[in-house]
């Protein structure tokens, strides 16, 4: 599986309800195994991660921080242990 494919996947819980889209993949530093997914939805959710507002790497400029603030609030971290299945374009949680 390509990481670009995973980054476009939708995450759903056991009942099939949408949790959000995969926005980032967290890797363990030592052996590069996937330890979790950064999942979110909403206006500029992708930008909120890429621009560094989601994990606090960036705190400015103020206008862009405001624009992404809503998406940042809705971003969650899903540990890999919660994943039941890696389907094509879809990640199913247990």
């Amino acid at each position: 599986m390509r990481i670009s494919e995973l980054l476009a996947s939708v995450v759903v819980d056991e009942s099939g309800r949408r949790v959000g889209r995969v926005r980032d993949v967290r890797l363990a530093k030592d052996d590069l195994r996937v330890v979790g997914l950064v999942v979110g939805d909403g206006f500029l959710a992708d930008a909120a991660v890429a621009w560094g507002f989601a994990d606090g790497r960036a705190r400015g400029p103020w206008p862009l921080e405001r624009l992404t603030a809503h998406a940042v609030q809705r971003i969650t971290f899903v540990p890999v242990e919660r994943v039941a299945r890696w389907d094509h374009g879809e990640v199913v949680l247990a």
Partner: protein
Amino acid sequence: MKPSTLFAFTLGTLSAIGGFIDIGDLVADAQVGARFGLRLAWVTVVSVIGIMCFAEMSGRIALKTQRPAFGLARSRIGPRYALAGLVGAFLVTALLVMAELSGVALALELASGFHYLLWVPVAAAFVVVVVWTLPFKLMHRIYGVLGLAMLVYVVAIWKLDPDWSTMWRSTATPAPVPGETWGAYLFFVVVLIGAQMTPYEMFFFSSGAVESRWRPKDLAEMRINVIVGFPLGGLLAIAIQAAAFLVFFDLGVQVDHISQTALPVALALGQVGFLLAIVGIFAATFGATLETLFATGYEIAQYFGWSYGKVQPPARAARFTTATLALLLISAALALTTLDPITVTIVAVVFSAALLPFLFVPVLLTANDRELMGELVNGRLANAVGSLTILFSVAVALAAFPLLVLTRAGVS
């Protein structure tokens, strides 16, 4: 100040002046001065502040990360938008390099009497030889020093003995002169922004900082270059506007040939002034040819992660060398099509203005990354000025094409 700092200060500043004035400036300033006097001088002030802010930011990124400002754009705005920006920048630069080459050739025509089209291949070959044989810093400094000849425009203003109160009234009236439309006025706002807030200056500045191996301790030197160089460039630009205002405005003469930009200097200072102006135009357009060419080569190389630059043998950066040479060839071929350099310049700077947000946003985002920038992360001032500049550039970008069409490139 240590002697070495002073040395670096003067040389860096000279090249900042040389980098600011190029064919776009010469054409836009002379046209604006002839049609609107100094009523658009405020645009130059805005441009200088904006480009200073982003040059300082990209310089800071280069000092801290030893990577050019565009190096991180792909992960920040994604490969798709970055590719769109890259393709746009490549096309605009092809037009700009064509216009700069024509400028070099026109300076040679003025000096020799031979038609400029004969000089275009000579100018292109000369660019190749200079790039191939001269070291980066020396190349930068030679045209920086020669570019100082442009200061004759400032001297010419005094010689023309203007009525300063008229000049001031014109500067303080941000509106079209009677007989001109708001559309044409706003179109030239876009043209001046595109000609003066040129992203290639920012890329060249930061890539140059990487190639010169600047480190965080060189922060003060980098900032002095920005704080002195760009405002001096802006002053020169306003001087060209003023010279055209004083000579052409009352006569109702339109500037449609590059040689006319040197005419005010010739009127004020005679043969010597005219010669200096030609040297200045040659140095400015030649320097700008190199800078635009390299900035685009750097941008392409950074998007694809290729090795690049002048500090290693060309064979170790084969893709970069090929791309840069290809761009030069395309531009020289365009120049030989006898397309009018003035029209091409105007169109190129309008497109350039429309691209600004694509190129500014990633730089602003990178400069705000605390993990990457550490103690050199953006402060409030850089963020405030940077955000306002981007806001302004978005407005300019949105207005650029409608104005281009509505005013038929400023004709009406």
